[in-house]
């Protein structure tokens, strides 16, 4: 098992290298000359050239990549063109709301989607099953900002149950914190819920046809025991895989959700950065999100060995 874990960790290195190369190239080919920007309007071509040399911008691609990578590994993501602040600092200031949104969405989605999928598989072919599948198709089709506005309109503007937008940190109390995050989390989670519910239903339907499930039923295990002990436990691997892959959807959706609900997180940071063409910030956020995504999927891969002891590779 240790050999598998080590092999799996080593396998993420080329993936991260490709991500890093891609993200670096983004800044490399980005239009606009940082040296010219720093030099200002009055500068002569010689001045610009001198600044370029002092910044090391005249050196070959691979050497610059190496240097950039070394800085990134030490936590230095460069300096924002717009605010002149270190990108790592700007990310640190904005990471909490995004993290909170993601965690709440993840918990909410999993706790809604898995029971939905299990019930749909159990009541296969009935109206409950059809309703769940119908919801899944809708979840895939209605974009996250549409769901967001719809929810905000109904539950915040019309019914006035929840705040329209904004964010309260958890240190100001759990209730205001969660009150602000319910609507964004439901909006962001709708695609994710659809995805997880669908795969849960499909896998459960397969598992429930297995001989050991019939044996369990025959020896008198209650339906809850069959579904959750014999069923869900054996369906865990595909479900967990999809939860991991779906985090990409969650990250992409968070960018939009934060704009709809005015949450001052990393999504807003990247949207503002696009409008200002602040490439180092875009680069930093993309790199961070990709790193988190790869890391989470690595953890899930390692979790396989716990969920299914037969997996040894």
């Amino acid at each position: 098992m240790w050999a598998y874990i080590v092999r799996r960790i080593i396998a993420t290195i080329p993936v991260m290298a490709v991500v890093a190369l891609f993200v670096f190239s983004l800044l490399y080919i980005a239009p606009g000359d940082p040296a010219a920007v720093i030099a200002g309007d009055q500068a002569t071509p010689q001045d610009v050239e001198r600044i370029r040399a002092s910044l090391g911008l005249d050196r070959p691609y691979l050497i610059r990549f190496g240097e950039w990578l070394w800085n990134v590994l030490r936590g230095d993501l460069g300096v924002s063109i717009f605010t002149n602040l270190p990108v790592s600092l700007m990310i640190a200031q904005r990471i909490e709301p995004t993290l909170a949104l993601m965690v709440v969405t993840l918990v909410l989605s999993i706790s809604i989607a898995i029971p939905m999928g299990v019930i749909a598989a159990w009541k296969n072919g009935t109206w409950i099953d059809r309703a769940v599948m119908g919801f899944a198709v809708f979840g895939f089709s209605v974009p996250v900002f549409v769901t967001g506005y719809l929810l905000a309109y109904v539950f915040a503007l019309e019914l006035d149950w929840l705040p329209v937008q904004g964010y309260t940190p958890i240190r100001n109390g759990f209730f205001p914190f969660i009150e602000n995050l319910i609507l964004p989390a439901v909006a962001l989670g709708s695609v994710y819920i659809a995805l997880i519910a669908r795969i849960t239903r499909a896998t459960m339907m397969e598992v429930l046809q297995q001989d050991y499930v019939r044996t369990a039923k025959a020896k008198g295990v209650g339906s809850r025991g069959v579904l959750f002990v014999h069923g869900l436990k054996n369906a865990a691997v595909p479900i967990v895989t999809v939860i991991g892959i779906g985090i990409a959807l969650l990250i992409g959706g968070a960018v939009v959700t934060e704009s709809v609900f005015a949450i001052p997180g990393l999504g807003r940071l990247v949207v503002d950065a696009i409008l200002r063409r602040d490439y180092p910030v875009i680069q930093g956020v993309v790199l961070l999100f990709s790193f988190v995504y790869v890391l989470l999927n690595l953890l899930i891969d390692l979790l396989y060995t716990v969920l299914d002891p037969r997996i040894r590779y």
Partner: protein
Amino acid sequence: MSPDTGIAAVHPAAAPRQAELFAAPRQTGRVRTFIRRHPTIALGLGLTCVMVFIAIFAPLLWTTDPQALAPARRVRPPSANFWFGTDMLGRDVYSRVMYGARISLIVGVSVAILSSLAGLLIGMFSGFIRILDAIIMRIMDGMMSIPPILLAIALMALTRASVQNVIIAITIAEIPRVSRLVRGVVLSLREQPYVEAAIAAGTSTPKIIFRHILPNTLAPLTVQATFICASAMITEAILSFIGAGTPPIIPSWGNIMAEGRALWQVAPYIVFFPALFLSVTVLAVNLLGDGLRDALDPRLAKRL
């Protein structure tokens, strides 16, 4: 094949009903049978056709110039004159939404076709040339670890806002998934006895690709292309919504919503109508994809 024998042969239970339908035109009978057998495809296709119709004939559908400014009638609620109301610049939201169908469909279909072609090519190379496989797949893995919307955002930040660049950015973000799919199909087909037999018989590689491999990738690729079309339309709307997509001058659904955003608490209809059309279109294309998948691969349909 005459429609009568065709239907009876496939579906014996339908045979007695043919007598009832005898007087009706044959075409109607066929359509009805199709709808009964594939309701999802029929619904998806029907709705998609409506949207395509709107996109093509937008100028004829009682629309006015979608760009025409009229500050005097800003932010009017929906009425007999302005079916979907007017936005903060007095532009007719109905006309803008009708013209918006063009952008969504152009982007969705272009991305679906381009990423399928590119993915087909890359997947074929990867599946056939083992030395390339490892390298290509590591690159695809890397690209897949960047969430697609962020990848598209990053690419859009590099270029000027235009419909063409939006298409290219979303296509690049979609290529890795198609390549993986095609490669998987190619690898499993290569193990098939008939392909092994063709190799043993000395058939040339191009001939094996065109005769045996390519036709078998088309079904899963078509299904995938449909889903890509749907997700590309959402991505385009998201990019436009956050200001990194189609130039604001062009009325795309994402742009209309982005402009209505500031006013959505007082004039929710500006956001609501493009949102409705976008959702219905994506739903239609997704239904089409679901239906096609069930029809083309019954084994998979049972699993999902």
